[in-house]
């Protein structure tokens, strides 16, 4: 159902340690325009749960959080 959602930009923060995935995602989101979709690739479990939480709190829409492999996640965030 989300296969047809094309991300506007991709942020690959795999390998990064706490809290860089979250901080880099927040910085990226601030630069993007309303309605655009950010794809985030992350391999840090805490951030895979925390980024969707904080993004939703900030009013952005989490289209999908998908576990793509062992210890790897892909999330799609629609900017408010």
């Amino acid at each position, binding site marked *: 159902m989300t296969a047809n959602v094309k991300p506007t930009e991709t942020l690959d923060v795999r390998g990064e*340690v*706490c*809290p*860089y995935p979250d901080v880099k995602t927040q910085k990226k989101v601030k630069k993007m325009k309303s309605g655009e979709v950010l794809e985030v690739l992350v391999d840090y479990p*805490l951030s895979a*749960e925390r980024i969707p939480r904080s993004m939703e*709190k900030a009013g952005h829409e989490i289209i999908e959080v998908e576990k793509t492999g*062992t*210890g*790897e996640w892909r999330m799609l965030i629609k900017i408010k």
Partner: protein
Amino acid sequence: MIDTSLMLSGLIVGVIFGFVLQRGRFCMNSAFRDIILLKEYTLIKAVALAIIIQMIGFHLMAQMNIIQLYPKTLYWGAMIFGGFIFGVGMVLAAGCASGTTYRVGEGMMGSFVALLGLMIGGLVTSGGYLIKLKSTLQPTEGALKAITTADLGVDPGHLLGNTNLTLANIFGLDPWIFVVIIAIVGLAVLIWKRGDEETKMKGSLYERIFKMGWDWWITGIAVGIVGILAFIAFKNYALGISGGWFGFLNALITGDPDKLNWFTFLVIGVVVGAAVAAVMAGEFKLRAPDAKRLLQQFIGGLIMGIGAVIGTACNIGHILSGVPQLALSSILGGLFIVLGCWLTAYVLFMRG
């Protein structure tokens, strides 16, 4: 060499602790840092709940003579300095002592490097080049010497196994007054602020335990219970992380098995338990950040090790195990760990 039953109990409690830490993503660096950095209060609620549960549990057990409480010695200068630099170090290391340890079990090489730094920093300070710094801040004479109940002429109270100061005995009050008030107020705030951070958990019970990250209140209760188990098993204290690693490296360097302590077996258990949890959840992966970040984490670990020896404990020994005993040393040390964490998080992530 410590006896086999202690070794086993350390390992068993450690494996459970590691499992809980990994499932609950329980890291105090994140818990404190995220308050100011991400305005995220999920982990701090888990930390607070674990402290409250242990506070009640420890005091109940002491009341029933199962254990005695051992608040740490109040070297006030050492607590302030050691706590503060520990807080600085844990932000650079991207994890506190417990967070770093459980992430080694998840396969995070940056945490492994931070752990090496922690061990080296600790041994350099406890018996090496920086021993002067430690003895200056933990002197037997002078303004910085330890303050005990004897110095203030107050009664340590009936639950303590030593003469160190607590929030209760410094005022000559019964500890239960504080336990009851802190527990009621703390639980009320947690229930009021329980919030919407809970993951909307779907799936079977098996999946919710072994596949998904736990809700904060489950983590808090689980960590609290593990802390109580640790105190029953070890008798002299509850959970601690950094001292276990210092003993580990010390035993390797000197070849003296007597350097291994109960906490050494606990921390080995934590790595194993976290690895088991991560593998079961499909989250175990060998991964590393870039070289610059690895260096930052190593330096962070080094500073944490120095801070933990000077401040006589890490975040676990002070905040998770000492604060529930109402130890003034741990309250002071813990406060400065948080301040060091906040200052560093501000400088690293929040300016500009």
